[in-house]
């Protein structure tokens, strides 16, 4: 079996060399295909991270009436904080709200100058364990009997950022459907090119194959070198794709970091996830190569 592995690889490499223009064509197609897949995966990953980030920042703000009785405010907080969906409830007093407002607008002194007294209401900030429960939780808050006694207008004074997120979901869904279409097309083209390369390799060796059959070489003994060739081409395409994606990644991420906007968005760049992506690309290349040559073997090599 050890001798066989050496034999198979040698045969596969000989085929590759004899037909290197075509083989490189197939390799290039696989590489292109995987670069696009990799880019899409990367963008999807970033998008997902971004959504997660936005979601984790989702909070419900309940703005309170200035004249709400203190006991009722406390009662509201005690109720909400005990719900299983709720992670944390913070009380922001009028004074703290003003402080924060002054910090936020310290670059716009004219806004602060026009400020008379403290127009800002006190509020509760409610954080949730799972951002997707936000709408249900808001509804539940509105149904509370106590709410009308602490909030002036329950339809306007309870705010959350959900509309924004659901729009993001729609966009990412559209983008991933389009990307999926492109990826399928590229996979198809790669498969066709690999199949064609292997078909020509089979054709070039038909005399040897005929003799091999005649003297009783087993079917797999005849097939495996061609399968190896496809796998080598796929793997090579994967390696090239990884190399190019790596270069692009380094170049763009650096410039983006320079522009600071990624830092601003605070998206974690997980090295581990990136490595997994590269591995997936390499395996996809190998898989495309194997399937492409398997198709050629089924169609053009009758054993």
């Amino acid at each position: 079996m050890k001798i066989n592995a050496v034999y198979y690889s040698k045969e596969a490499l000989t085929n590759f060399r004899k037909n290197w223009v075509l083989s490189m064509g197939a390799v290039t197609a696989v590489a292109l295909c995987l670069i696009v897949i990799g880019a899409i995966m990367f963008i999807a990953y970033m998008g997902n991270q971004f959504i997660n980030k936005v979601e984790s920042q989702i909070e419900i703000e309940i703005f309170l009436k200035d004249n709400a009785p203190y006991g009722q405010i406390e009662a509201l907080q005690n109720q909400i904080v005990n719900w299983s969906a709720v992670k944390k409830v913070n009380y922001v007093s009028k004074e703290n709200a003003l402080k924060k407002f002054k910090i936020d607008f310290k670059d716009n002194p004219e806004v602060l100058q026009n400020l008379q007294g403290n127009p800002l209401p006190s509020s509760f900030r409610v954080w949730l364990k799972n951002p997707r429960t936000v709408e249900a939780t808001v509804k539940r808050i509105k149904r509370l009997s106590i709410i009308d006694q602490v909030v002036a207008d329950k339809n306007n004074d309870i705010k959350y950022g959900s509309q924004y997120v659901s729009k993001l979901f729609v966009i990412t869904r559209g983008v991933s459907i389009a990307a999926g279409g492109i990826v399928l097309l590229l996979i198809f083209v790669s498969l066709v090119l690999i199949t064609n390369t292997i078909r020509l390799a089979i054709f070039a060796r038909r005399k040897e194959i005929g003799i091999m059959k005649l003297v009783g070489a087993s079917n797999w003994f005849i097939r495996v070198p061609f399968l190896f060739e496809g796998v080598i081409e796929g793997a090579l395409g994967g390696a090239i794709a990884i190399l190019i994606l790596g270069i692009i990644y380094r170049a763009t991420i650096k410039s983006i970091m320079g522009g600071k906007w990624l830092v601003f968005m605070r998206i974690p760049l997980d090295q581990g996830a990136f490595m997994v992506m590269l591995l997936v690309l390499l395996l996809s290349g190998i898989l495309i190569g194997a399937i492409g040559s398997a198709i050629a073997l089924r169609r053009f090599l009758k054993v």
Partner: protein
Amino acid sequence: MIRLKHVSKDYGGDRPALTDISVNIAKGEFVFLVGPSGSGKSTFIRLLLREILPTQGDIYISGQDIKALRSWKIPFLRRNIGCVFQDFKLLPNKTAFGNVAFALEVIGRSRYMIKKQVPEVLRLVGLEDKLDSYPGELSGGEQQRVSIARAFVNRPPLLLADEPTGNLDPATSLGVMTLFNRINRSGTTILIATHDREMVDSMRKRVIALENGNVVRDQLRGVYGYED
């Protein structure tokens, strides 16, 4: 060794290639299969190699029904059948040694076995001094000897030949036939499809004559028997 029971093969032409053939060939026999072109000789050989399946009837080789053989087992059938052709079917980029060794390599024999057996069988066919010659450097008769060596290197119990002397002059043909005779004496069953009249007549072996897909004659120590 070989048993055909009511075998017919129809390729879909105007008449079947073989019609209701029943033939028994015992182990160790030397048989000529004769007949004009298109009489069904090649179909006969291809059926035995299981390159094609009979339309009707059963074929047994060493008691095994080869019609029922699963496709992955076919190579193992062929390892027990040596095969020689009119056009030699040698690989031009391999030496005589390489061509014979190829047959052993692809069935997974060890290097040691190959180094031992190939020169031995090439000596048997009288080419011990041409081990490193390429087919292009060999005469037709020598090339056919290489192909016989390749067919026999695995010591198969059955050797088939389809017009083995078709491309050779009479003197060379005689040498090749002598070689077949020698291999036959070691116990190998031999079936040769040919229309080489002189050869058949001089050997006086069993002759099965085909005509239009029918067996018209089957005699021991026979002659070719047609007037072309």
